[in-house]
């Protein structure tokens, strides 16, 4: 579904991503793991068109998209819930969600999806007229995910959805991701919390300073010694 080949991304002279290749298959949850500065967020931003790559190719459903502007990438069915949530704090919940559906024009479908999001996150329905900035971190994250779902993506990219959340909230987010997967949404996940991410991943890649150093299924990596030492805090 998504295929990244030899992707190189640079900020000026500094190469943040140094030729990585990976793929995401239909219906999978795929994780990118790594420490700060490994290039995970840069990779996502490049896929969604917010950054331009230096070289390499990005293919989405048989189409090359590495020169496609961001707003057209969304229309192709690829949504990006950015790092730090980036909700619109002064707009209401409902306005936020409707903006998520900006790339769509089917009013009925939007109304249906709005209901779907409200069903998934009841709290959003209860507070739909409130400015999103008054929410707690976890609620904002739900809104960010809900907003990304509003474009009815076939591939959803989530950047650090658990960042700064309480353990309970985090479980909630992880189970939401599983629920989305069961609905047939393919998910590309960037996470710092490796254990949680690996548990629900069909496949995972470990990035270190711009390069993929390890890959395998979620289970394989959970059992891998190097992963255990570096990311799971076990000896």
């Amino acid at each position, binding site marked *: 579904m998504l295929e990244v080949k030899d992707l190189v991304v640079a900020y000026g002279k500094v190469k943040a991503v140094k030729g990585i290749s990976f793929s995401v298959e239909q219906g999978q949850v795929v994780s990118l793991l790594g420490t700060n500065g490994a290039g995970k967020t840069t990779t996502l931003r490049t896929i*969604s068109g917010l950054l331009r790559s230096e070289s390499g190719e990005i293919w989405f459903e048989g189409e090359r998209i590495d020169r496609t502007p961001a707003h057209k990438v969304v229309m192709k069915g690829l949504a990006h819930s950015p790092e730090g949530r980036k909700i*619109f704090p002064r707009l209401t919940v409902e306005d936020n969600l409707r903006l998520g559906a900006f790339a769509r024009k089917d009013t009925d479908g939007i109304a249906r999806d709005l209901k779907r999001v409200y069903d998934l996150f009841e709290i959003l329905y209860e507070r739909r007229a409130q400015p999103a900035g008054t929410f707690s971190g976890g609620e904002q994250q739900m809104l960010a995910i809900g907003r990304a779902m509003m474009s009815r993506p076939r591939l959803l990219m989530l950047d650090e959805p658990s960042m700064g959340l309480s353990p309970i909230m985090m479980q909630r987010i992880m189970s939401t991701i599983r629920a989305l997967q069961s609905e047939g949404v393919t998910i590309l996940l960037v996470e710092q919390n490796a254990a949680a991410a690996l548990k629900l991943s069909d496949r995972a890649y470990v990035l270190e300073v711009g390069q993929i150093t390890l890959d395998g299924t979620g289970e394989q990596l959970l059992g891998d010694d190097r992963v255990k030492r570096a990311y799971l805090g076990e000896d």
Partner: protein
Amino acid sequence: MNVPTIVTPELQKRFHVPGRIAALAGGLLLAASAYLPWAYDGDALDNMAFLGGPSTLQFLGALLGLLLAVSAGMAWVEPWADRKGILPRLLMVSRRAGWTRGTKALGVGLLGFIAVVLIAIALELGGLVTIEYGGWVALAGALLGFVGSRLLTPGRAPSLEKVKTPAWLEIVSIAVLLLVALLLAAYALNQNDGGTFLSILAFIGALVAFILRVGAGGWLSAAGQRHRNVLVFSSFAVAFLFPFTQNGSDANMSIATQVLIFAATAVGLNIVVGLAGLLDLGYIAFLGAGAFTAATMSQSAFATIGWKPPFIVVMLIAGLVSATLGLIIGSPTLRVSGDYLAIVTLAFGEIFRISMSNLDGSDGPDLVHGSSGIPAIPNLNLFGFDFGKVHTVLGIPLGRFSNYFFLMLLIMALIVLVFTRLNHSRIGRGWVAIREDEKAAEAMGVNVFGLKLLAFAGGAFLAGLAGAVKAHVDQSVTPDQYIFLESAFLLAAVVLGGMGTVMGVLLGAALLKLVPEKLRFVNEYRMLIFGLLMVLMMRFRPEGMIPNQRRVLEFHSDDEELVEEIEEDLPYEFAEEH
């Protein structure tokens, strides 16, 4: 708003009965004082020197006084609502009104009105001694009413918008209100005396504050929502009727036409600033570009372009020239955000003016005759209708400026239509997203650059249209009409009135243009006064005089009443399913 409280709630609880009596008595005293002379000499304001014959201003004062007495007294009348009959049923409606809140607002407004009147008398006749005893009685009444109203507890919030009223009543109310507004505006404009004009403004201010606080504003806006087309149509009808109230005099029509041109430009700027959130400090250049384009293609002997297409075509070309300039300025700068744009547009405004001054044949092509500009632009002639002639309709002569007023009204209707269509479209939502957070908007699939450019070029196009008419209204176009100050005033109109709304900007533009025309002393100090006004607005009402609801939420996100209001407006009803 943190205004220091002198009258504490405890004080209000203890003294609300004497307070109510004082407000009632003060209102009646003021009403009675209208029959006494307020000034020693008839020269001040409208003649207020008679005993037993109130002048118009005195009459307006009496009206406010009676209103204060009635609204203060309502609390004692309302218990009768439990009896039977038609009157008690009306009283039931009155129970939904916020009479006490209205009383409090009117107490302030009334004092302001009397203060303006008395100060104006003193200034015009020379000293406080020129105020007759009636004036002091009026002041005493106003003070009594003010203090009394301060002592009242605010009481219930109005809920008049929930009253079920027949459609005809709502439509008639809208029409009557607009007609009253027209008559008041016509009356105020016909006053050549600055003090009288200002007093009428104070009267209107007090009345509007009262109406809003009583809750009739809520009812009216609900009615306006239900009959949106009626409201829009009758607003334009009333504006259309305005020239007929002037008896062929062109003095006010000239001001009104200038106000319309200014307002049309300001609404165009509001697309850029209010909707897309782009700060444009050189917007006047687009008006200028339209005016210069129209001038060079006009029938003037000084026009430099030989091609003289009909005015409709000229207007379109003027709009397109402005829009092209907008694209040229916008495409490199809109990629960067925020302050850069403000600086570039500021520079662009000056570059435009200076370039025009230099296109005089010695430094460049002689396109606009440099700083002397293009004079002697003849009046328009559209489809055989000569804009320079006086046309008599129903026995009322309509002069040159009335003709242009009608044309501007049409263009204004077009601009307002474009504005509201855009605001409520997908594009409008995209602009909101850009205004809030560009990066997030991009991730949502908003074409940030494209939409910014659209706002910029679209706004410029509308300004170009207005500029084309302005060239013919002013009869000459010179570069020094398009200085930075004008851009600043346009921006001030947008900010004062309310970013992102049409009504607000119309009001802001009208005030900013009208007040200096009518009040000579304001004209001298207008920079000072408007500057001060802007600072005060930013402190106490950053969303503008007539804000749009979303904006209010952006500035006061902790207002729970407002959240509820917006909740009621949401289109989706899932309540029963949850």
